[in-house]
């Protein structure tokens, strides 16, 4: 039986608004959303449009009931932190509203996933940035986390790609940003005057803590590849060819500094279509269709890399443009003593790698398949100032990872940083120190928890930046040395959510 319920009158009112088939507090429905150790929701609501979302939010304010909206609910941030919370499942809000080809932007509702959006825009010769975790993520640049990915070097990321949007504030107003309000158009979400984009997200989104985002537009980018994803074969062995004027390589370098130099130069020369600093374990996991296969591939290929590496895809607008980009890339790699990994360069494999990173479906293989569910210590990340600084931070943490491997707390994997990227041809950087596949002993668990705290301490004391920070505890930790931002963020929360009902365990509360 469910341990908590919402107010009966509220439930009845929600039935009136949504129809009884779109609201449930039945235990089987509740348990179907329960992720790992989180408390259960008290009820689940399925609105179909913004007006219904607004009505739900206003009702929750009337009955002083906490609520939390999510789309695909991948991850603990979709869960409540306390009991008695109404989940607003945006599953029925799953339309692509508009694709504007002339000005290259697309407008979606929250339950459109990136694979769907990318497929539609590819048909039209365009591409969207995709969250690195996977194209199974919501295509709203306001959904979860940062909305950074492998394509961000050329296709930017959520905080920057966002244009117009529609927002149901925590206390039930509807804000239609920018041109949307006056013209019904999504091409600009800034103004008039100051931009509320500054309130609704930062380098990460509020993840349910600041009302509900019901529509958003994002920039699109050029795509010169085929109009349809070309994979042949049967799952999980899809095979693709590298399209004309594209090239994919995994380059490895003798030292972290040379890798950094290469990535910075590739960014600065603006030749990269896709680039991600990946260690070899991420590459083998991407290709492998099972953990066993990944272990075998890693065993074969880990000894063959001279050091940390990155995957690079270049794409030419024309044969000449491709030739130029290739010349530049090869020169840079030569200058930095990089070598190409045959595993990725092999024409039998190259196409598959290219497409699995262009439409990342493989992040699940790279991170979640190993131990399933969580990721051991998870993604420990710092929000970027710049790439070289982020690189320093992950290198500072690498010895801890090495120690864990030595002690048998995690499986043998590369200690090179697994996720490093540059955005917008070098005008931004991001790194993550993932530790996947942990042993579930008390000592290992403690070591992982300690590691999370150590990484935060290193980030603060080393002045590297803020982490993937959410929740009061982390904001209270990072806030004081970081211009006391947490006090302002609390003010934002208090101002827009005076009743404190947009459940904020992954955001910040308005506590004094």
């Amino acid at each position, binding site marked *: 039986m469910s341990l908590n319920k919402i107010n009966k009158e509220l439930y009845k009112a929600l039935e009136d608004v949504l129809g009884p088939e779109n609201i449930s507090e039945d235990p089987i429905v509740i348990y179907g959303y329960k992720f790992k150790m989180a408390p259960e929701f008290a009820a689940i609501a399925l609105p179909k449009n913004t007006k219904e979302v607004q009505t739900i939010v206003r009702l929750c304010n009337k009955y002083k009931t906490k609520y939390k909206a999510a789309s695909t609910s991948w991850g603990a941030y979709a869960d409540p932190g306390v009991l008695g919370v109404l989940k607003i499942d945006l599953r029925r809000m799953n339309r692509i509203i508009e694709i504007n080809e*002339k000005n*290259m*932007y697309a407008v979606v509702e929250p339950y459109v996933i990136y694979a769907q959006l990318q497929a539609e825009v590819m048909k039209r010769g365009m591409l969207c940035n995709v969250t690195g975790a996977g194209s199974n993520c919501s295509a709203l640049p306001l959904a979860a986390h940062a909305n950074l990915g492998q394509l961000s070097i050329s296709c*930017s990321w959520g905080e920057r790609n966002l*244009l117009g949007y529609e927002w149901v*504030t925590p206390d039930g107003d509807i*804000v*239609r940003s*920018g*041109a949307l*309000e*006056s013209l019904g*158009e999504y091409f*600009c979400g*800034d*103004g*008039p*005057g*100051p*931009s*509320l*984009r*500054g*309130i609704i*997200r*930062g*380098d*990460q989104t*509020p993840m349910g803590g600041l009302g509900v985002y019901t529509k958003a537009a994002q*920039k699109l980018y*050029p795509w010169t590849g085929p109009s349809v994803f070309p994979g042949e074969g049967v799952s999980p062995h899809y095979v693709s060819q590298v399209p004309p004027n594209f090239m994919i390589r995994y380059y490895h370098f003798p030292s972290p500094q040379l890798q950094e130099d290469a990535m*910075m130069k590739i960014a*600065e*020369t603006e030749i990269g279509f896709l680039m991600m600093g990946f260690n070899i374990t991420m590459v083998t996991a991407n290709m492998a269709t099972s953990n066993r296969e990944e272990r075998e591939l890693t065993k074969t290929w880990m000894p063959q890399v001279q050091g940390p590496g990155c995957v690079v895809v270049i794409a030419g*607008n*024309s044969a000449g*443009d491709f030739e*130029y980009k290739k*010349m530049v890339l090869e020169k840079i790699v030569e200058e930095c003593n990089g070598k190409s990994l045959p595993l990725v360069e092999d024409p039998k494999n190259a196409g598959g790698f290219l497409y699995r990173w262009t439409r990342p479906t493989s992040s699940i293989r790279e991170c979640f398949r190993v131990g399933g569910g969580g990721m051991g210590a998870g993604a420990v990340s710092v*929000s*970027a*100032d*710049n790439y*070289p600084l982020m690189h*320093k931070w992950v290198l500072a943490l690498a010895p801890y990872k090495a120690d864990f491997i030595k002690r048998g707390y995690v499986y043998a994997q590369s200690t090179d940083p697994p996720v490093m990227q540059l955005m917008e041809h070098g*005008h931004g950087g991001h790194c993550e120190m993932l530790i996947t596949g942990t042993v579930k002993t008390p000592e290992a668990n403690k070591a992982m928890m300690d590691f999370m705290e150590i990484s935060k301490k290193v*980030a603060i004391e*080393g*002045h590297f*930046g*803020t982490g993937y920070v*959410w929740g009061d505890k982390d904001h209270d930790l*990072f806030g004081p040395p*970081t211009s006391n*931002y947490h006090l*302002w*963020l609390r*003010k934002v929360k208090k*101002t*827009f959510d005076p009743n404190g009902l947009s459940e904020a365990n992954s955001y910040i509360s308005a506590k004094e």
Partner: protein
Amino acid sequence: MIEEKELAKIVGTTNVSREPETLKSYSKDISFVNSVRPECVVRPGNADDIKKIVKLANETRTPLVPVSSGEPHFRGDTIPGTGGAVMVDLSGMKKIIRIDRLNRMVMFEPGVTYGELIPVLAKEGMRFSMPLLPRKTKSVVGSMLEREPVVMPAYHWDISDPLGCVEVVFGTGDTFRTGAAAGPGTIEEQWEAGGAQQEAAGPTQFSLYRVIQGAQGTMGIVTWASAKCELLPRLEEPFLVGSSQLDKIMEMVYWLIRTRMVNECFVLNNTNLATIMANKFPGEYQDIKNSLPPWILFFNIAGYDYFPEKKVSVHIHDMKEIAQRAGLEPVQAIGKVSASELLEAVQRPSEDPYWKLRGKGACEDIFFITINDKLSGLVSAMNNLADAAGYPASEMGIYLQPIVQNANCHLEFNLFYNPEDPAEAGKVRELNTKATKTLMSNGAFFSRPYGENTDTIYSSHASTAAALKRVKAMFDPNNIMNPGKLCF
């Protein structure tokens, strides 16, 4: 009201002025905004001065109006909106604080102008994304905070570019640093670690730089900004394309930006291009204008450190294919204008007199953001409005700047007029008001509301205005920061 002596204690007596002529110069600008005389002008030297001034202003409920550019001013945003205001003139804060070649960043104070910044960056092999021919006295920080469009759309990933982080003293008197500059640690500690205040977003789950931009000083006073730089090209090949058909021009613009082949890229009508290139009016101006087609597209193909000749040659080849498909011809000169002269001109601020004032002495700009589908309709509508108002459309300047990598377009109409001629000035003023309303219903989004049309603009943005008022209440609860502007 802050007492003068209190201000003098902070900035020194020479940096506080109540001279009538000085006050007069701040009470009015070229716009049609009502003239309001400030109470005094104070010139802070650093962030600490500013913090103290804001604290005093809060205690005495004195309105503050920040200004960082020198004259002439155009928009009315630096004219006090109410009496008893103190002008906080930051134009003397001219430090270029730090240049970071590795991360392509620069940090500087509000008084730095483009003319001061460009040569310093050039020494490091870098350049700055500029608006079209800013006036010499234009503050770079001011321009970025106003979200002025820049002429290199390929480098305009987001409407906030090239702004990075800022240090701001909010209306509450609190100092805050946005984005990566927030910390952890002081700026110096961040530099020591390798920080460059590059990332504008954050810290964490908000991006306050965006509510400071576009705020016309109503949230706080910026004491420095960091901004993105690009590399200085080794090789440049500029081109002009002329046509009477705007649609064809925009088709070519689409492909040039989509392929990211070009740096500078914008469209002018013949009036504006002639105005920019002419030194003598009306003779030379008319000659140049007569030699030009109605629309002129300007773009520049550049090569950098790696294989610059190869890049330029490949991209010229590809560009010509695009031009051919659009039925256009790229050339190095059209009429009396050469592409290389124009390139040289647009890579620095305008020479004096400011180009918009050369012809008749004054100019009223009507500008907004729109998308490609609506461009022709809007131009047509404005032409009709101008003619109907007795302002010959043929004398109106038009500037089309694709922005946000062509996700949208800045469209600007420049109404040149003689400020000594009340009839002409009145005509322009009325035209501006009427045009704003008409253009709004034809697809114009006025993202940067100034002057008399502000209320009209906000009347169509009720939900945004309501939310912005909540934001204002957080950062300036006593409404001392430039009150009466925007929707506040």
